[in-house]
């Protein structure tokens, strides 16, 4: 049964004003060319984008939600990574 199913692809689109490609969904296609053509038809019917990336879903590796706490913890207590941590004298401009 799965033999006849085309592989699954994840679709990323960059809008005209967008700086990055955003995940918009997935679709089935036999190969990359068809995946891009299908993505054009399925996800950009109203000029939602001017650039499309597709990647076969099996190549996407994701972080594990169960590890989220331990994984992102280290960034939690490093407030000094943000500019607001520092006090700049009022008389100093342009900083």
């Amino acid at each position: 049964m799965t033999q006849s199913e085309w592989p699954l692809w994840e679709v990323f689109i960059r809008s005209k004003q967008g700086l990055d490609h955003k995940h918009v969904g997935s679709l089935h296609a036999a190969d990359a060319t068809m995946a891009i053509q299908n993505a054009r038809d399925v996800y950009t019917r109203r000029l939602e984008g001017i650039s499309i990336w597709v990647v076969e879903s099996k190549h996407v590796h994701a972080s594990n939600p169960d590890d989220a706490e331990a994984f992102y913890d280290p960034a939690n207590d490093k407030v000094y990574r943000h500019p607001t941590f520092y006090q700049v004298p009022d008389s100093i401009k342009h900083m």
Partner: protein
Amino acid sequence: METVEINLEEQFQARIDADVRIEPKDWMPDAYRKTLIRQISQHAHSELVGMLPEGNWITRAPSLKRKSILLSKVQDEAGHGLYLYSAAETLGASRDQMLADLHSGKAKYSSIFNYPTLSWADMGTVGWLVDGAAILNQVPLCRTSYGPYARAMVRVCKEESFHQRQGFEIMQTLCEGAPEQKAMAQEALNRWWWPTLMMFGPKDADSPNTEQSMKWRIKRFTNDELRQKFVDMMVPQAEFLGLTVPDPALQWNETKQGYDFGDVNWEEFWNVVKGNGMCNKDRLGARIKAHEEGAWVREAALAHAKKRAERAETQAA
């Protein structure tokens, strides 16, 4: 072991109560997964089968403008089906299996599409009423608890409002036209009004799964609540068009600030659900025919991709 399961379930519910989206890799109760797969795939099937009644009029649209619009709308519905099938696949359902279930009759789709589209006014009525009802059903689902489903619904809803407006515009044009055109619009409304009210599903008292679905936030209003909203929304629009809603019991109720309306013919509803509607056999037949006649294309594309991949491999070696 059992306490672990209970804890997971409590944590899961707590996340939902806090309006945190559930994502594909998150733990979820089996029943949540199963219910969602059923709900999302049924919805996807409805989009797919929903192309057929309108596809019926593409070649007979009264002008090039109307033809282009109808073609776009039907194409959107195909897109909606695809967004939703993809969302269901993130839960582990396979596309082939979902389609097989549709074709075998195991899976259901909205019974509204088992009614025939007999005149051009039906294109107006379907867009105005049927897409209008779909919007009411779908807008709350943009905030549903399952992330991929919610995101698919956001896209769907954005596109639906054009569907409803083009339908209303067809109705308005007919109602402002010759008496024969207006009669055609009225006749279509007469046929579609009650089946559209059935789109919201059985009465709350006969909908035992509603409570659990509301708790999981994969449903955010009950069937009867949505039906009431729909009537309240549509009656003034029908009045604007100068059309009569075919319900003698319809009456404004000052106390509840809404309309009272007659009871749906539930026998007809269950009959259509069971497969005995006017077009059930036609619709399913058309779906199966399209699927079977497209089989060689799917196989050839796969064979072609495989051949090219192999060629690329030997060239690299």
